[in-house]
C-alpha cells in the first residue's frame, strides 16, 4: 500500500527483565495502521499482542519492560522517545485505549458521570486557555457522549456507581471516556471477552458505527477470530512475540498461508458448519526466556526445514498479504 500510514510500528522489540532472566516478549514487530482502518491483532495467550498495544502509549512499567529496539511513529513523532510528560498529553487525545474488564478501570467510589466529566476536564488542561470548557459544559458533553455510546437512560445512569451497571454498560462508559478527547486511534484490548454473546454483538455494533461515523481508526486485540471477522478489515497474526502473517480479512480466512494461521483456523469450531474433526496445534508455546532462534513457530510447524533456524524474511505476496515463513520466501527468491 502506498499511502502514508497513520501509525507505524517499526522493528519493535521489547524484553522483560525478570528474576529468571530476560523474557524476550516482542521480537522485531512491524505493524502499520492506516486512517479509517480497523486492524485486528490476533494470537493466543502470550503472543505479545497486548504488550505491543500497550507499548504504543508507554503503558508498561519499566522496569521490568525494556524496549530494546524500534520506533513507533504517529504524526511525525516517535512515541518511544517521548518523556513521561509528553506521552501523557498523547493519551486519550491521539490514541485512546479500552480494556477487557471495564470494572477494573472504573473507580468504584465515584459515579460514572463524575468519572466521565473528570476525564473531559483533564483534557481541557492541555488546551489553550480560551478554548477550555467549564464544568457545566463538560457535563453536557458527557451526556452527549453517553448518548453516542447508546447507554440506555443516560440521565438516570449519570449518577449511578459502576457496580450498579452491567458489564456491557460499563464497557460503554469506558468507550465514552476513550472518545472524550477526540482520539484518532482507538485501541481495544479484548473489549468483549468478558461479555455474553448478545452483549458482545451490541458492543461490536457500536464500535463499527464509531468507525463509520467518526472516521476512527481502530486496533482490535483479540483471540477470537469470529470477532475479528465481524469488524476488521485487516488482520495481523502474532505468535510468540513475532508477526507471522499480515493480510486483509478476506485473505486471512479464504487464503491463509502461514502454517500457524492455518492451524488456528482449523482449531476454531464454526457455529453453522459442523466439521468432522477439529485439529489442534500440537506442542506448547516456546519458553520466551530462551526462545528458539529464527522462526519461533518452528518446533510446532508441520513444514519445518533446516532454514527455519534463521529468521524468515518478510515476504510480500500481494498488496494485501505479507508473511514471515521460509516456505514462501524461498520459493520466491531462490
Amino acid at each position, binding site marked *: 500500500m502506498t499511502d502514508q500510514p497513520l501509525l507505524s510500528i517499526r522493528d519493535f522489540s521489547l524484553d522483560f527483565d525478570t528474576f529468571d532472566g530476560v523474557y524476550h516478549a516482542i521480537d522485531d514487530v512491524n505493524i502499520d495502521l492506516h486512517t479509517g482502518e480497523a486492524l485486528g491483532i490476533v494470537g*493466543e*495467550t502470550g503472543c505479545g499482542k497486548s504488550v505491543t498495544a500497550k507499548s504504543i502509549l508507554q503503558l508498561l512499567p519499566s522496569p521490568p519492560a525494556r524496549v530494546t529496539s524500534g520506533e513507533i511513529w504517529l504524526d511525525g513523532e516517535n512515541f518511544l522517545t517521548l518523556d513521561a510528560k509528553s506521552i501523557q498529553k498523547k493519551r486519550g487525545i491521539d490514541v485512546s485505549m479500552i480494556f477487557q474488564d471495564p470494572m477494573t478501570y472504573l473507580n468504584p467510589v465515584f459515579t460514572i458521570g463524575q468519572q466521565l466529566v473528570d476525564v473531559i476536564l483533564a483534557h481541557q488542561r492541555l488546551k489553550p486557555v480560551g478554548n477550555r470548557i467549564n464544568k457545566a459544559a463538560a457535563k453536557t458533553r458527557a451526556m452527549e457522549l453517553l448518548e453516542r455510546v447508546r447507554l*440506555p437512560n443516560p440521565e438516570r445512569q449519570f449518577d449511578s456507581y459502576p457496580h450498579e451497571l*452491567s458489564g*456491557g*454498560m460499563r464497557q460503554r462508559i469506558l468507550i465514552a471516556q476513550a472518545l472524550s478527547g477526540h482520539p484518532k486511534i482507538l485501541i481495544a484490548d479484548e473489549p468483549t471477552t468478558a461479555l*455474553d*454473546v*448478545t*452483549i*458482545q*454483538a*451490541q458492543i*461490536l*455494533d457500536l464500535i463499527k458505527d464509531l468507525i463509520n461515523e467518526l472516521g476512527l481508526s481502530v486496533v482490535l486485540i483479540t*483471540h*477470537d*477470530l*469470529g*470477532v475479528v*471477522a*465481524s469488524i476488521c478489515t485487516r488482520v495481523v497474526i502474532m505468535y510468540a512475540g513475532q508477526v507471522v502473517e499480515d493480510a486483509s*480479512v*478476506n485473505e*486471512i*480466512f*479464504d487464503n491463509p498461508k502461514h502454517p500457524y494461521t492455518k*492451524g*488456528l*483456523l*482449523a*482449531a*476454531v*469450531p*464454526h*457455529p*453453522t458448519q*459442523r*466439521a468432522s*474433526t*477439529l*485439529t*489442534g*496445534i*500440537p506442542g*506448547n508455546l516456546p519458553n520466551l526466556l530462551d526462545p528458539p532462534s529464527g522462526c519461533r513457530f518452528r518446533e510446532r510447524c508441520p513444514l519445518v526445514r533446516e532454514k527455519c533456524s534463521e529468521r524468515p524474511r518478510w515476504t510480500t505476496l500481494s498488496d494485501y498479504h505479507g508473511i514471515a515463513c521460509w516456505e514462501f520466501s524461498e520459493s520466491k527468491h531462490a
Partner: protein
Amino acid sequence: MLDIKDLKVHFDTSKPLKRKTIVKAVNGVNLSLAKGDALGLVGESGSGKSTIGKAILHLVPITNGSIKIDGFETNPLSRKIERELRRRAQMIFQDPHSALNPRLPVLRSVAEPLVLHTDLRGSELRTKVAELLETVGLPSQFLYRYPHELSGGQKQRVCIARAIALNPDLLILDEPTSALDVSVQAQILEFLKELQIKFSLSFLFISHDLSVIRHLCNRVAVMYLGEIVEEGLTTDIFHSPKHPYTQALLNAVPFPQAEQPDREAPLTGDIPSPVDLPIGCNFSTRCPKMMKGTCETTSPILSELSKTRKVACHLHS
C-alpha cells in the same frame, strides 16, 4: 439415565433487617439424558446453567425437585447415596488450575477417588493412575509433577483423568475449555469426543459458546433466567431455532469467516435480575416479538412441538 424433575435452586441472599431477596437461579427445570447422549446446556451468564450442573452433584443445596441417576433418587441426600452418586457422576470445571491442589503431585490428585472408592493401593494404584494418564494422553513422567509445572491444557487433562478414574456414567463439564487457547481447546474437544464414544459416557456439557456445543453435543437445551426455553436435537436447534431467544443467541455469534451473514439487530438490554423476575415470560423484557397482553401477563410453559423438540413460547403454543 439422568432424569431431573422440577428442579429448583433458590439462594436466600437477604441481608439482616432488609427486604427478603431470593435469587431464583434455577426455577423448575426438567431434563433427561439417555446413556451415551451429549446434552449441551447453553445460556448467558446468570442463566443458571452452572447451577444445574452443581445441583446434580449436590454441590449446591437443592430447594426442590427430584434428580434420578439410573432410576436412583439422589434427593434427599444421605451419606450412602452421596458415595454412590460420586462414583456415578463426576464434574470437570472451567479453571483446571483451581481444581487441582497445588501441593499434591498429579499422582496423588488422580489417585484420590481410587483410594476412597477402591482397594487399590501401592504399586497397583500407581499403575492404574499411569493408565489413566495414558488414556488422557499424558506420559507417565507426569505422575510426579505438580500442577504449576503443567500447562493449562495438561492440567485439564489431569482433571479429566481424575474424573474418569471410577468409570462414571455421567460427566458434567462446566465450560471445560473456556480458559484455554483455541489450539488447545481443539485438542481437548476432540479428545472428549473420543472419550465419550470409548466409554459410552453421558455428557452434560455446559457452555456459553454455541460453536463448541454444536461440535460436541447431539442435543441442546437453551436456558434463560433459570428456565429452559428450548430443547431439541443440535441440528434442529441450529437450523431452525424456534424461540426468539435462541434465534437472538445464534444471530449474535460472530462467524470466523470473511463473508459475514446478514444479521438482524442484536438484542437490546441486559438479562434481568434473577431476584425480581419479570411478570409473564422471562424473556418478554428483551423479546423483539413480544405480544402485548399475552407475554407480559402469563408465562409460557415448555411444550412439545415434536418428539424431540420442546419450546416455551406463546408464539408456538
